[in-house]
């Protein structure tokens, strides 16, 4: 991939490519932005019924039903209708736990690259469920995915993050080092 990109840049611009750097403050800013994104949205997944009652369906329940009715892909809509909706409490707790974990990892800068991939996957799952819902703007979810890819690409936990401390350890397992 790198070789392919190198060949797409003229020889006179190779120096510019090599000089491409990101100021640490920019990387930290993106990481914290992603953290606050989840921070400001984790609270409305409210246990134990996650918005479902005998009279109404609101909150997470409503978005699951939107996913079942207007999911972006037919197999995804089937999954929401037949697997997620009947087990709303289980998936509600899973969502709460996933987003809480994202908040902790992204704000502290721990295992940031793994967190960025998890965040991109969660953004994709939300987008596939509700991008076609009324009042939603599908670009929101594409931009959320892009934000997490940028955090991954910059390995943003290595600046003012716990990953910077972890990576000092020479005995760090390879998988953990990759996740930082």
């Amino acid at each position: 991939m790198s070789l392919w990109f190198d060949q797409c840049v003229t020889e006179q611009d190779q120096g510019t490519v090599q000089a491409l750097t990101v100021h640490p403050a920019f990387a930290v800013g993106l990481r914290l932005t992603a953290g606050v994104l989840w921070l400001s949205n984790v609270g409305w997944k409210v246990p134990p019924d996650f918005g479902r009652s005998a009279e109404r369906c609101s909150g997470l329940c409503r978005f699951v039903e939107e996913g079942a009715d207007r999911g972006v892909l037919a197999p995804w809509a089937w999954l929401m209708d037949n697997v997620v909706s009947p087990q709303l409490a289980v998936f509600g707790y899973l969502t709460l736990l996933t987003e809480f974990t994202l908040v902790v990892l992204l704000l502290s800068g721990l295992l940031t690259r793994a967190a960025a991939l998890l965040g991109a996957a969660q953004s994709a799952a939300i987008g596939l469920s509700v991008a076609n819902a009324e009042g939603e703007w599908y670009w929101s979810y594409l931009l959320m995915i892009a934000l997490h890819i940028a955090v991954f690409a910059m390995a943003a936990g290595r600046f003012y993050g716990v990953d910077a401390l972890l990576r000092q350890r020479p005995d760090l397992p390879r998988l953990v080092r990759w996740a930082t």
Partner: protein
Amino acid sequence: MTRRYRAAYAVTVALYGVVMIVANARNDVLSSTYTRDWVLFGGANDIPGDFGRNVFGGSVALGVLIIVIAGLMWQLAGRSAAVAVGGLAVAFAVVLLVLYDADGNLLAARPAPLGVLAAAGVVLISSALDDRTDRGRDRAAR
């Protein structure tokens, strides 16, 4: 963990706690029910109203606890005691998250401030790994 790192973390977390105290000031200090009468974020708009209520939802007591953790980050980061304090912060955040429901919980804690508390705990725990600081070098020498 260098002095600059400690200061950056401690000041950021303390500021978060201060805004939380102000935002929830009209609720009881030790309330277990969620704030309804907000300071700063009472507007019926997405931002700053809804955003602020989601990010800073809690109680005055939880805000004070977060400021105390910020102080401990400044005082203890890089020392071995930071592991125990950080572990307690993470454990307390997880317990409150388990108790979270629509009717309120201990300290009226919503998941957002609990995430901040747990992240501060993680930073405290991991600060003991750092050998670059004066504290770390002293430990390595021993």
